[in-house]
């Protein structure tokens, strides 16, 4: 692997993790959406770079989907939706920024330790990509867990999915990548439409299902 090629791929994938970390502490919805658009932009660059160095033209399709759909259409649509739903105020984070950031750092460390240890023989590029992708995936999960607002949960899910696309493009010659990214785009479109149509504003206040069930049992009478 020659130096600059590897370094650029590495930098872009690392940039994705960095932007994921940035998403953790955004406490306003608009800001969160802007950072997510940046996230998708970095993903686009990363995928396009992979397409170039792997000489895999079909990956340009994935890059184009990431650019058009996730960096432009979805953020713009969500912007308008937030205004119409009247929830452009603050995000209620369940956990404070400090602990969230610490948890995020812990997750990144964890995924790097896990992935680098199990892939000593893999292609170094795929190996680093995978470690970063797992970090992005876990950070996305963390965003979903620490937010209560449905829109920011969706954003968390989309960043998680960006991590998956990074992993899929990093795996050299993996078939069905384009199909999978299309399938995911459809899934996301469904979620976004669902949020809008049914005006889902809040996630349920508790992750403890027992409490939720009891509450519902009482309400129903």
């Amino acid at each position: 692997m020659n130096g600059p090629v590897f370094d650029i791929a590495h930098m872009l994938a690392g940039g994705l993790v960095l932007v994921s970390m940035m998403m953790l502490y955004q406490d306003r919805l608009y800001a969160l959406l802007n950072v997510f658009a940046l996230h998708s932009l970095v993903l686009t660059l990363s995928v396009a770079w992979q397409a170039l160095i792997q000489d895999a033209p079909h990956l340009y399709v994935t890059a184009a989907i990431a650019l058009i759909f996730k960096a432009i259409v979805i953020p713009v649509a969500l912007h308008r939706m937030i205004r119409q739903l009247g929830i452009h105020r603050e995000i209620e984070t369940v956990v404070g920024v400090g602990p969230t950031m610490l948890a995020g750092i812990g997750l990144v460390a964890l995924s790097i330790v896990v992935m680098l240890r199990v892939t000593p023989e893999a292609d170094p590029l795929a190996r680093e990509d995978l470690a970063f992708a797992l970090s992005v995936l876990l950070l996305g999960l963390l965003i979903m867990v620490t937010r209560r607002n449905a829109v920011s949960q969706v954003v968390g899910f989309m960043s998680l999915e960006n991590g998956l696309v990074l992993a899929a493009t990093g795996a050299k010659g993996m078939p069905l990548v384009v199909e999978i990214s299309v399938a995911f785009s459809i899934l996301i479109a469904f979620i976004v439409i669902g949020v809008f149509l049914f005006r889902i504003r809040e996630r349920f206040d508790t992750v403890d299902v027992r409490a939720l069930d009891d509450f519902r049992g009482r309400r129903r009478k």
Partner: protein
Amino acid sequence: MNVLSPLLAFDAVAAVLLVPVVAAALLALLPGYRITARLNVLASLLTLLAALSLFVTERPEPGQYLLVDDLNIVFIVLNAFVGFTTSIFSASYIAHELETGRLTPANLRFYHAMYQVMMFGMNLAFVSNNIGLMWVAVELATLTTVLMVGIYRTHEALEAAWKYFILGSVGIAFALFGTILVYLAAQPVVGEGYDAMVWTILVEHAATFDPALLNVAFVFLLLGYGTKVGLAPLHAWLPDAHAEGPTPISAVLSGLLLNVALYAVLRFKILLSASPEAIAAGPLMMTMGLTSLIFAAFMLYRRRDIKRLFAYSSIEHMGIIVFAFGLGGPLANFAGLLHMVMHSLTKSAIFFAVGHVAQIKGTQRLSAIRGLTETHPSLGWGLLAGVIAIAGLPPMGIFMSEFLIVSSTFARHPLLAIPLVFGLLVAFGALLLRLTGVAFGQPRGSVAPGKASYIPMYAHLALVLGAGIYLPPPLVAWFQHIANLLR
């Protein structure tokens, strides 16, 4: 014969996939409840016939995308059978929903089309030989059920659909990451491209894959698909989705969709066990299975909603099945397979009964449903028979499979048998406690006679009873063969 048979076999596989697709397109276009409900039944029947013909026609060679082997035929036939009986139940259920105005004709068109798309997704997941394709198919099946869970558009239904959606999507994401890791493990050995995702090729070469990578991949796959199996602690979507959606969907969710995810886990378990240096998948699956069993058994006690009660019972039984497959070995695998079939048949029969009961009484609250055997004898006794079966009492089939699981646990890991039996007894007690009132209490609420046909429910129960009394030797031989395949 030998000239035509490959062609016929291809047709059977294609029919299993194409009939639902064509039916979905037609159902989306056709107006009118009577025609569409009948067409739905007809399409499901054709799918069932196509699935049955897989037994007699020659199987196609495993290709890049599709595969028919001894394992998935059982799943496909079970899927098509329950899909068919549920479509009959659905026709009478939906007629009532139309009368009461809970569903509009426009909803209905959507509902029927989605039903067939879901059947397509599930069948595709079963026949796919490509782990990427399987992932897409499971996603498709999940997506359609999400839409159907939310079809009543009430606050609770939307909440349930949303929860299912989010948790299901996270599960799907983990499963995809696991799939990518499997590809990466295969790529140095098999080479780039499609071959490294074809299951039959993967199994052949699994022994030479990097075991560490396979281990991590399996953890992700188990978590991802395990979310869909409804294993604790990833089960949170399941009770809501069962309770708030239309009852035919609860029946297919419990009876079929959980099996689809289970099938995916089993496929990867075979892959992992083909690699001698990888960790054993068994202990992981046994832990998750036991946790689900015991957790769900205790949760059964405090249910007030009848559909929620049986949703927790599904978690319990999926726990038992995963435990059995985790235990491994010919006997436990055989028992797990039998238990899976019996559970699908029994649980969907119970949901058929529950659907009619909830429609007659106008509520799903357990305390409002009392004395069914007195007011609605055929429905009440049917439900009671279903509960006896699901609680694991003889002479029903579930008793036999549970007995086999417990006895093989005693033989191999006596200590694990203690929590297993404990969980089974707790669940047994909860079900009897809840259901005696429903069956024999002082009648309450509407006593209007049900107008529905109870044939699907009794057909399922008869099969479960029959299996409990006598299992035909060819079936036993077939299951034993699969049990050996599963290792």
